[in-house]
Structures are given as structure tokens and as C-alpha cells.
């Protein structure tokens, strides 16, 4: 037999008027009792009421008339958002490069890898899948919290001592006082008629205070959470005179020897090692002939050395007073004008061969600066392309042999050096062939053999006639 019990505390206070009436709560022993009671309450037309159970009771949705939740739509929305973000992010960050945007942070970084297209959809699917799932899961979890208004830690029902069993082994049915049909006494008697083992009225304080413990914890958490950003901001805004922290000592301070240090590994205990017998240091030559052969320059005479020293001294005093004669990128040196290898027909043939391989692509087979690379670049209208100079200009013809040798070996202006591909003797061979080419375009009439001259003249005549 059910009894209607007012909460003891409220009786002791004796002032129910100061407390807000929340509703009436009935306790049931079994889920079947709860189910049948729910059906009755539903049929009586109550709208603001709920039941409470330690687990989801089968059939309660129907008994209470609960509508299907909207949650699946939220989840679908989350999934579509995740998928879209993932595909857009990947194609943008790896697939495009927008050049010089005002904010580099906004531009992607298009770099090819292992022959894959910049935008490779198959490779983007795993991440798209993961983000779809992640955002869907967030939508499911947080959507559940929001729809259920969870996170509201305080509930007046918790004041009922018996209600603690709602999470253990008892079933409750509560009717809210905000319901239009609510009447305290009739609701209570109805519930006890429906087989409730007890019915209680729930009152609430007007403004439930947050327990002081939560306030303390909250303050502590906020303060602790502020420490890292404050530290970061402080470090970023501070100039330090001490060296930065080196987390990995081995990487920053490597065990290498410095000059004049002792190293017991060697018999003489010196860390610095003497030159090995029979080796030559780079840039140092055994003889002037070597320098001429290998560099195309001649050693400066004593007078020149003195002049250079004076010039150097004046440079030190006045940095603007340098030698402004040379164009930028133009190598300088005391160029030799001879060819320091044996010149013969064989060398000439070799020079032609190498020229056709290495030089002709840009300079053209005739050296007129119209090789295939040049033609292609002009076709493409590449703005960065510098037209290849002809080898037959007066300037080039007047260059000393050493200069041309040097240009082949080390490059000049935009032309790269070919020293790694063309050996020393071959470079001289190319110089020889270039000279021959130049001669072929600029020979004075008397230098041409008589039979060739007549042939050329007849060719010119037929050309003119055909024009």
C-alpha cells in the first residue's frame, strides 16, 4: 500500500512556501509496474513527466510515447562536414600553391612525392574516412549531451534520499509541476493508485548554489590552465642573453676536434694532420705551366702583384673605389692566349665532337646562339630565359683563349660550368673548335683557299638568283 510522504527536511523547516514545488515522484518496484503506470499517465494526457530507471527499460519509449530522436541527423551532418573538411584540406594543402599570398600561412605547399599527382584522391581517402568518423562521433556524443541537457550537475531530485536507488534497482516516475494538468494532490493519489510503492513531493531551493568545492576546483583548474599560455607568452616576449636550452646535447655539441688540440689517437698526439705526401691542395700549382693548363690563367708578374696589392689596400680604405670595369658575373684573371696542349687535326675533331654534345644544345651547331634549347625556351616565352649569345660577336672573338677555357670549366653568368663533364684536354679542344667556328664566320677573303672561295661565290650567285 502506497503512502504519501512529505520530505522530512521540509517538514522540519516548516516553511514549504519558501521552496519551489518541483513535482511528484513515485517509486515502483518492478519495470512492469513502471511500464503499465507509464501507459496510464501517457493516456491521461500529461506532457511534462519522465520515468527513471537503472537501465533502458524495454518498451518504455512506446509506453511513454517518446518520439524518435533527431540525433541521427546531427551525426549525418557531422560526417558530411568531416569528409568535406578532409578532402578540401588535403587537396588545398598538398595540391595547390598560390604563390605570393600576403599570408604564407594561407598558401598550400604543392610538393610532388613518389610520382603521385599533387591531388591524389586514393591517398586522401584514409584521412577523409577518419575525419568523417571523428566528427560523426563528436556529433553523436556531444549531440547526446546537448539533447539530454547533461552536464547540469544539480537536480532537485537528488535531494530525495530514495531516488539514489534509481541508478541501482528501483524505478521512478516523476510528474513535473510545470505540466498544465499538474495538481499536487491528484497526481500523488493517481500515482499511488497506479501501484507505486511510495510517492513523494519534491521541493527545491529557489537558487541552487554551486557547492563551494566545485567553485574551489573550478578556480584552481582555471589558474592551472592559464599557466602554460602565460609561460609561452612570457618567453616569446622576452629577450634572453643566456644561450637557449639544448635538450639534445649530443646533437648540438658534437665531439669534433678543434685546431691545436691534442688527440692521442695519432702517434704524434696532434689533432691537426700534416699534408699527405704526393697530394696537391686545391688552387695550388706545382708550376706556371700547370696553372695555364688547368686554369687558363698565367701567374701574375711581379709588377702586377704589386699593383694588385695597392688596389687591394685602396679597396680596404674606400670600399666604393673598387675596379668597376668588369661587368657583374664576369670572371677576371690574367688569361693566357695560347692553347697549352698539342694542337692537331685530332684535337680539332675531338673539339667538334665535344662541342656538338655539350655546347650545341644552347649555342647551336654553328655557334650562333640558336640551339634547340634556346628555340624551345623562346617558344615557351619563358620570361626568365636569357637569349644565348652568339659566339661570333666581336667581344667573344676578342676574348683570350684562357677566358673561354674558364667559361667552359666554371661557367659564366647564367651558363653553368661544364668542368665536371668535360676533361681538361677536351676543354682546350673545345676552345680550339670555337676558334675555328669563329674563323669560319669572320675570315678575311684572302685567308680563304682559292677553290673554296670560288665555290662560295657561285653558291651566293645561285642563292641570289633563286631569291
Amino acid at each position, binding site marked *: 500500500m502506497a503512502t504519501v510522504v512529505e520530505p522530512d527536511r521540509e517538514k522540519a523547516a516548516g516553511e514549504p512556501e519558501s521552496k519551489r514545488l518541483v513535482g511528484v515522484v513515485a517509486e515502483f518496484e518492478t519495470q512492469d509496474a513502471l511500464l503499465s503506470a507509464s501507459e496510464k499517465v501517457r493516456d491521461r494526457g500529461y506532457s511534462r513527466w519522465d520515468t*527513471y530507471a*537503472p537501465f533502458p527499460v524495454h518498451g518504455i519509449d512506446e509506453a511513454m510515447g517518446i518520439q524518435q530522436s533527431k540525433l541521427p541527423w546531427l551525426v549525418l551532418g557531422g560526417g558530411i562536414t568531416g569528409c568535406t573538411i578532409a578532402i578540401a584540406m588535403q587537396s588545398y594543402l598538398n595540391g595547390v600553391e598560390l604563390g605570393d599570398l600576403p599570408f604564407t600561412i594561407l598558401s598550400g605547399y604543392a610538393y610532388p612525392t613518389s610520382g603521385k599527382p599533387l591531388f591524389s584522391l586514393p591517398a*586522401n581517402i584514409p584521412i577523409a574516412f577518419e575525419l568523417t568518423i571523428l566528427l560523426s562521433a563528436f556529433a553523436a556524443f556531444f549531440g547526446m549531451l546537448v539533447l539530454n541537457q547533461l552536464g547540469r550537475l544539480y537536480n532537485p531530485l537528488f535531494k530525495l534520499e530514495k531516488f539514489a536507488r534509481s541508478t541501482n534497482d528501483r524505478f521512478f516516475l516523476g510528474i513535473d509541476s510545470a505540466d498544465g494538468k499538474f495538481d499536487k494532490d491528484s497526481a500523488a493519489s493517481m500515482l499511488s493508485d497506479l501501484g507505486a510503492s511510495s510517492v513523494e513531493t519534491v521541493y527545491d531551493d529557489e537558487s541552487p548554489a554551486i557547492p563551494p568545492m566545485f567553485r574551489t576546483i573550478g578556480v584552481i583548474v582555471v589558474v592551472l590552465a592559464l599557466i602554460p599560455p602565460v609561460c609561452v607568452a612570457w618567453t616569446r616576449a622576452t629577450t634572453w642573453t643566456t644561450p637557449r636550452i639544448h635538450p639534445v646535447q649530443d646533437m648540438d655539441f658534437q665531439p669534433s676536434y678543434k685546431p691545436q688540440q691534442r688527440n692521442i689517437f695519432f702517434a704524434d698526439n696532434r689533432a691537426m694532420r700534416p699534408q699527405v705526401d704526393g697530394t696537391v691542395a686545391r688552387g695550388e700549382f706545382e708550376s706556371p705551366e700547370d696553372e695555364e693548363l688547368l686554369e687558363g690563367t698565367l701567374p701574375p708578374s711581379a709588377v702586377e702583384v704589386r699593383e694588385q696589392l695597392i688596389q687591394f689596400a685602396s679597396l680596404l680604405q674606400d670600399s666604393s673605389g673598387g675596379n668597376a670595369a668588369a661587368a657583374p658575373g664576369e670572371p677576371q684573371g690574367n688569361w693566357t692566349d695560347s692553347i697549352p696542349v698539342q694542337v692537331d687535326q685530332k684535337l680539332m675533331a675531338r673539339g667538334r665532337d665535344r662541342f656538338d654534345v655539350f655546347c650545341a644544345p644552347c649555342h647551336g651547331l654553328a655557334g650562333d646562339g640558336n640551339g634547340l634549347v634556346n628555340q624551345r625556351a623562346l617558344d615557351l616565352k619563358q620570361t626568365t630565359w636569357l637569349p644565348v649569345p652568339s659566339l661570333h660577336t666581336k667581344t667573344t672573338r676578342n676574348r683570350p683563349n684562357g677566358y673561354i677555357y674558364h667559361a667552359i670549366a666554371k661557367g659564366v653568368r647564367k651558363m653553368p660550368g661544364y668542368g665536371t663533364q668535360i676533361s681538361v684536354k677536351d676543354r682546350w679542344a673545345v676552345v680550339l673548335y670555337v676558334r675555328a667556328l669563329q674563323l669560319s664566320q669572320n675570315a678575311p677573303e684572302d685567308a680563304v683557299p682559292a677553290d673554296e672561295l670560288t665555290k662560295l661565290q657561285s653558291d651566293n650567285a645561285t642563292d641570289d638568283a633563286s631569291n
Partner: protein
Amino acid sequence: MSAISPTLDTTIEVPGRRTPLVIGNNDYNSVTETVAGVHERKTPLGWYIGFGIAVTWLAILGACIGYLITTGVGVWGNMNPVFWGWPIVNFVFWVGIGHAGTLISAILFLFRQNWRTSINRFAEAMTIFAVVCAGMFPGIHIGRIWVSYWLAPYPNQMAMWPQFRSPLMWDVFAVSTYATVSILFWYMGMIPDLATFRDRAKNKIAQGLYGFFSLGWTGSSRNWHVYEKAYGLLAALAAPLVLSVHTVVSFDFATSQLPGWHTTIFPPYFVAGAIFSGFGMVLTLIIPARAWFGLQDLVTLRHLENMCKVIIATGSMVGYAYGMEFFIAWYSGAIYEGFAFQNRAFGPYAWAYWIMISCNVICPQLFWIPWFRKTPWAMWVVSIFVNIGMWFERFVITVTSLSRDFLPSSWGYFTPTWIDILMLLGSFGLFFTLFLLFCKFLPIVAMSEVKNVLPHDHGDGEDGETAPAEYRA
């Protein structure tokens, strides 16, 4: 708490009658008492001893990581050509372990396997701790740990973005998504049980903390409705997610051109292996736990038997994949592929290969014999072998394949350093520390779900009978 009924043998199958999932005349209250009792009773000495050992190993792990950071990855045995050594082996091992939890919670939920309710919480917790252990290894493997945030899609100081076409990048997303969703799933499942703990808490601090984390749960049916919906949806999302995680881990290997790594069967094979190892670990943990915490009525022999069957199934799938790899290595006629597999079985690491085969393929077949499925200690022994075998599987895949490069001049033999060994053991310290804390402070069985499958008075007809005569041994 009700007495355990020793005469009841739930492993007997009576077709047409559903074996009770909870035995021993339990009612709602006794289920609560049993589960909450683990947390509320005086902590047994064994827990302190176990915790002490686990924390010691955790400290050793911490020391090893400190040493690693200050010295560099040279402290490991990783060498040329075995650039991926034990850290990756351990990573894949732990991620695999982590698969059983979500599988039990999600896939068995979708297939309405109600026996999952007694073990799902336990397995989910295991998942999360295993994923923590797993996530640690690639984290420290990158060498410069203090710039690990470069893995995030954030334009770093070089204005570069991560390379999304790299499977390693996919891994970052897969494992972190998996960890996040697993935690959500685990936590969401715990909210009602935390509310139970809140309502039973005696002291203010416990009340406050459980109250805070149970988010004001009242057990309202309107809430349960949305909650169940969300749970189902999370399960439906977690199921493909479980598949995807080890699939992506397998992509780390299989997208390469290395013989022994590049095989199309890798994705499902890795997933099967992961579930296999995960169930192995669940058995390893739950068999002692149910004895210590008095959960025999909730986690019955039937539950253990079912897990054994999952182990046979997944173990056989792994065996199928091993077989297919071998067959296709020959069938393809690709000499490198052929060599790689010959080298696995008969090369310098043949010992590891045969440990793997005997533990993973042969050992679980013992479960065909009913005695092994019904004797907890025997299962426990087999489950240990499964764990060992699955660690060796990852060792075989990673180390054996790498040690034999395309160029014989770069071949090598990997030997672990003592740091490698201590870190593996230390990761178990981390795992067990977290696990013991979980056992002590959180509901280790999903009470609300178990109550749902208790024989109800009006009930699901088939679940109705407790201990019918047929089950009496």
C-alpha cells in the same frame, strides 16, 4: 552478494534455450553490489603489490625515454637497414591489442551478442590503455620529440604542411581518431555507472568527482532514449573505425615496394590479427580479474568460451593470410617476393618465424578441444602464447623484411639493445598502472547493461529461465 553456484555449467549448449548470461540468482542490487564492491571494499594487498611493480616499470620506462631524448635514437638497436626496429614492433603490437575492446563494444553490439555486456567495459578500458602505449612509440620514434607537433596540419615555421599522401600521416589521423572515439565510447558507456557510484559514494570528494563525471545523470527514460540512440550510432561508427585503424597501420607497410610488406591482403589480415591479439589480451586479463574480484557470476565460463571461439576464428584467418602470402609469393613468380618468404621461414630470423607460426596458428587450434575452452588456467596459458605470437608476428614483418634489402651489400642483422628491452617491459608497466587504477576507481563491469540482460520477470521469453536443469553438471 549472492553465492557462486559451482554446479552450474553454462558452457552446455541447449538449442532453443538461451543460456543465462548472469548466473547465481543475481538481482539488480546484487549486480550493483558486486561491481561497486570492487571499488568500495578495502583494497587487497595484492593490488598494492601489483601496482608497486607496475609503477616501478613505469618509472623505468620514463627513465628510458629521458635517456632516449637526451641522447638520441641511437640508444635503440635500430640500424641500417633495419630503420624500424622494436619501437614500431611495439607500436603495432599495442595497437593490435587495442582492437578487441572496440570490437566487443561495437561489432558485437551491432550483432546483438548480449554476452558482450559483462566484458565490454573491461575490454574498452584495455583498448584505451593499449592505445596509450601504442601512441607513445611513434611519438618517441620521431627523434626530435619537441617538434612532434609538426605532424599536425599546422603551418610550421617553414610554412610547410604535412604530407597527406604519406601513410605515416594517415596513421597519425587513424590512431588519434581511434583513441578519441574509443575514449568517448568508453566514457559514454560509463556515465550511468558513474552515476551509480555517485549515488553510493560515502565521502564528499568521491561524491563530487563521480558527480562531476556523471554529468548529472538521472536515469531518465527520455535521456535513455537519446543515449541508446547515440550508443548505437557510436557503435556503428566505431565498427568501421576499428577496421580502418589496423588497415591504415598495414598501409604503413603495404604501400611500400618492399617484398614481404607489399601484399594486398595486408589490410584484412592485419585487422584479423589485431582482433586475435586483442582477444588474447582480454583473456589474459579477465581470467585472473574475475577470480580476484569475484565476478564469476557475471563473467561466466560461457563468456570465456565464446572468446576462445573468437580466438580460433581470428587465429585461423591469420593462418589463412600467412598461407596466401606464401602461395602468392611462389605463384607470382616474383623472385624478390619469393626470396623474402623463403628468408622468413629459413633465413637468419627463422626462429622468430616459427615462434610466430606455432603461437598464432597452431596454439589456438587447441581450442577446438572443449577441455581447453572450459578450463580457465589452460585458456590463460594459451592466451599468453597468443600474445607472444602476435608480438613476434610484428617482429617478423618489420625486422625480417627490412634486414634483407634489395642490395645484398646492405643486409644486416638487427639486435635489440637493453633500452629496447626495458622499453617494451616498461610499456607493460604503463599499461598495468593505468589498468590497476581503472580497476580500483571505475566500474569495471557495465552494470546498467548487465542489468538489461538479467532475466527479467516479464522478460525476453528466451532469456527467462535461470539455471534450468540441463545446465547442472
